[in-house]
């Protein structure tokens, strides 16, 4: 069995291109998809502001200070001409016109940014207005300080929980979504194409040589499967480690937990591969089937986009039939919710169950064939 295991590595060294391709593709896709979204997510949004009707320059500067309390936006005071020019040449999609106690927005496109800025500005101006009204009515000078102080000991504390006890809403981190999704997606390719070695060996007769040798049949299977398993695990772990430790992605899962999740997922994928091998007859068929199966599983299972945006209940039901769904779920729960192995029992045991089932059926089909 050891000999078979090590032979596969030797063969990989002679023909590493396919596996290397999947590895590099993962890096590229995570990098591209992840960092693309990270720009508008983590960074500040630059907004031009200018003084409009009835507002004084100094007054506007005061508003800008208030507005810049947020980490999400950075407002800059420019003259109106400049603001219009920036919108015209497309470098900005909007600008804020500051009036005496109010604001207007100059908008080129009705997009998400426009709504974000609008609701934020609205909130700031309304708060300020209320404070001013309160000051006028009560006549107290140090009202602001006192409100500030009171806010540290609020009389009411509001916590939102959902029925299932989890935090409501979902935390969508595009870079992690890309990292988890793409890594698992491409690892499925690596694992399944490596498994097609089995079909290849059957075709070229080396499999029969092993079977007629004193080796047990399970040893022959074990050697091949162990290779695919270790290869898959290595690929996933290396990519996670690279993005977390080298590029500083905020994965936030202990290495041990990552390894356990990866192991369960890889096992399930190796098994799905065995099932496919059991179902098809030739290498060509296998090579046609693998991309179809892998891609549709990845789409359904949420590797390309978060399943939270899917509303079709049929598709959601289908997603539960793919190992990648549980893999991503486990990684997400471990990362965002800080779950340990015990907390991940659900998805992990489903992955193992999935694996055992597919493996059993796959090997059975294959053995019945010969």
């Amino acid at each position, binding site marked *: 069995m050891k*000999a078979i295991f090590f*032979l596969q590595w*030797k*063969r990989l060294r002679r*023909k590493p291109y396919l596996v290397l391709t999947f590895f590099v593709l993962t890096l590229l896709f995570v990098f591209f998809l992840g960092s693309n979204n990270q720009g508008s997510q983590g960074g500040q949004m630059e907004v031009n502001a200018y003084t409009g009707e009835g507002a004084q320059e100094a007054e506007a500067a005061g508003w800008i200070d208030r507005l810049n309390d947020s980490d999400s936006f950075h407002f800059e005071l420019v003259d109106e001409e400049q603001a219009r020019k920036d919108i015209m040449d497309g470098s900005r999609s909007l600008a804020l016109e500051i009036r005496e106690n109010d604001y207007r927005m100059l908008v080129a496109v009705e997009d998400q940014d426009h709504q974000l800025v609008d609701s934020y500005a609205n909130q700031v101006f309304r708060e300020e207005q209320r404070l001013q009204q309160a000051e006028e009515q009560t006549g107290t000078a140090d009202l602001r300080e006192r409100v500030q102080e009171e806010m540290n000991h609020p009389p009411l504390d509001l916590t939102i929980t959902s029925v299932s006890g989890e935090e409501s809403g979902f935390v969508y981190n595009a870079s992690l979504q890309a990292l988890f999704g793409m890594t698992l997606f491409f690892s499925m390719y690596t694992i399944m194409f490596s498994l097609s070695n089995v079909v290849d060996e059957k075709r070229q007769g080396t499999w*029969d*040589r092993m079977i*007629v040798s*004193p080796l047990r049949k399970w040893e022959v299977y074990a050697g091949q499967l162990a290779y695919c398993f270790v290869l898959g695990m290595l690929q996933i772990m290396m990519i996670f480690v690279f993005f977390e430790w080298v590029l500083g992605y905020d994965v936030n899962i202990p290495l041990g937990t990552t390894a356990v999740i990866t192991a369960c997922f890889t096992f399930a994928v190796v098994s799905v591969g065995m099932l496919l091998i059991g179902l098809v007859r030739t290498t060509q068929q296998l090579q046609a089937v693998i991309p179809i199966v892998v891609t549709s599983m990845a789409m359904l299972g949420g590797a390309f986009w978060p399943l939270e945006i899917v509303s079709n209940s049929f598709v959601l039901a289908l997603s539960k039939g793919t190992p990648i769904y549980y893999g991503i779920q486990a990684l997400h729960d471990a990362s965002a919710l800080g779950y340990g192995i015990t907390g991940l029992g659900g998805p992990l045991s489903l992955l193992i169950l999935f694996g055992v089932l597919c493996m059993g059926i796959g090997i059975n089909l294959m053995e019945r064939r010969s």
Partner: protein
Amino acid sequence: MLEVENVSKSFKGRNVVEGMNLYLEKGESIGLLGPNGAGKSTTISIISSLIKPSSGDVKLNGSSVIKKPAAIRKVIGIVPQDIALYEELSAYENLLFFGQMYGMSKAGLAAKIQEVCRLVGLEDRQKDIVKTYSGGMKRRVNIAAALLHDPEILIMDEPTVGIDPQSRSYILEMIRNLNIERGMTVLYTSHYMEEVERLCDRVYIMDHGKVISSGTKEELKNILSAEETIYIDFDRVYPAMYDELQHHQDILRASETENGLKLIVPKGSRLLSRVFQITERHKAQVTNVNVSVPSLEDVFLHLTGRKLRD
């Protein structure tokens, strides 16, 4: 030492091997002869415990191979019909791996690989990648891989296909030496009569999944010792005359050849003159006549009415 007892195998309801009986004594060299699709490879797969027969049993020293394949797997070396090697590895690496299958130590293997490579005439290029080999060289590695663990029984399925005549002769010689000097038991499959005639003590002739005849080479040829073959060529086809000859009571069998007829007649029946009377009567122009003694090829033809190779 090895017995195949009444073995049958069917694939999807089609009988490929039927009621096969065969035995191998220690130190014997046995030929298994038959045309394409006769069921030779299937028989070998059954013997080597690669596939299970639909019925019947294979026994090694009296115990069933089907139930306990471990015993036979230790003692046989198989040369498969199709080259079964890792093309992206060198011959040396291939042999190293296949040797490890038999639990041989690396140190012992290194020496053994050299010996086996010398045996098949493949010393110089063993570190080259198999993909870069010629067909004949691959065949030799294919054979070498079966010899690493000094098998007691060597089973070869058409091992010399695609090898040039000199190399083939060399390899046949090598097998014969293994058989005679080392006492290796050999089961050799082929559809080349000459190979089997040269190499084997006993021969099984298979067709359509059945053994249609078996025995020593002499025994088999004796089947035909009472016959001789007359080839007559004509300038053109004479259907009426062909018909008459084919139904002649003294002619055992007549079949059309490219330029005329092939007649199988009882030995010493002096039929030739009577045949000429008939051709005379039909005003047929004889262009060539040839009388020949039987070969194993003719034995096969006699038994099946077909040629061994088309």
